[in-house]
């Protein structure tokens, strides 16, 4: 699945997009932490279909996934 990266996380990853597959969000985050140096020490949220998800949820593969560093709007 396609994972969108933003702000500091996109900077650390050196890209705004990543292709990964995982059966659920916990597995996806483990894969992301392997691919993005220092991700585990950063503060971030995971969005599935534009909603922030805190618990582990199953993924079918068609979801819109995004990794969001702290917000800074306004």
């Amino acid at each position, binding site marked *: 699945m396609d994972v969108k990266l*933003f702000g*500091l996380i996109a*900077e650390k990853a050196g890209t705004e997009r990543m292709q990964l597959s995982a059966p659920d969000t916990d597995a996806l985050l483990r894969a992301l932490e392997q691919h993005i140096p220092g991700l585990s020490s950063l503060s971030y949220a995971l969005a599935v279909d534009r909603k922030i998800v805190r618990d582990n949820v199953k993924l079918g593969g068609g979801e819109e996934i*995004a990794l*969001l560093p*702290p*917000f*800074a*709007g*306004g």
Partner: protein
Amino acid sequence: MSETKTHKKRDIFVEGPIDPAFIAESIAKHSTKHDIGAHEIFLGQVRADELKSPQGMATRGPATGNQQPTTVQAIEYTAYRDMANEQMAAIREEAFARWPITCLHVHHSQGIIKAGELCFFVFASSAHRQMAREAVAYVTDEVKKRLPIFGKEIFQGGGHQWKHNT
């Protein structure tokens, strides 16, 4: 405001700074609405903050040129635009459910906004002042909390760090 208008797909993002002339136009458009007695407006302006401590630099990228960045020259805003607009639609509905406001307009900048330029515009109107005042305070605070907008503070002389709302 009608149900249809409330649910209309809106995009709050504008490229570059918010022009004071745009604010004037937005205000002037309300002169035909004779049930409005009060307008409340919040504007966010980019501050030339000084970097206070070396810890503040923890997340900045490799410095280019000058190794002693001091003040913020600009903020580059990026956003997860679809999610931000969906969150805004939800905040809008909450505001209309809670206060009898006549209208609510929200705009946020994308791209590089220099110190002294405007990046955020919240505008509510109502018959009496209390409702518009409370709605603008609520919407301003919720936008800062809930919209996935990211700000790269660019320092004078090179270097940057990522802003985050507290």
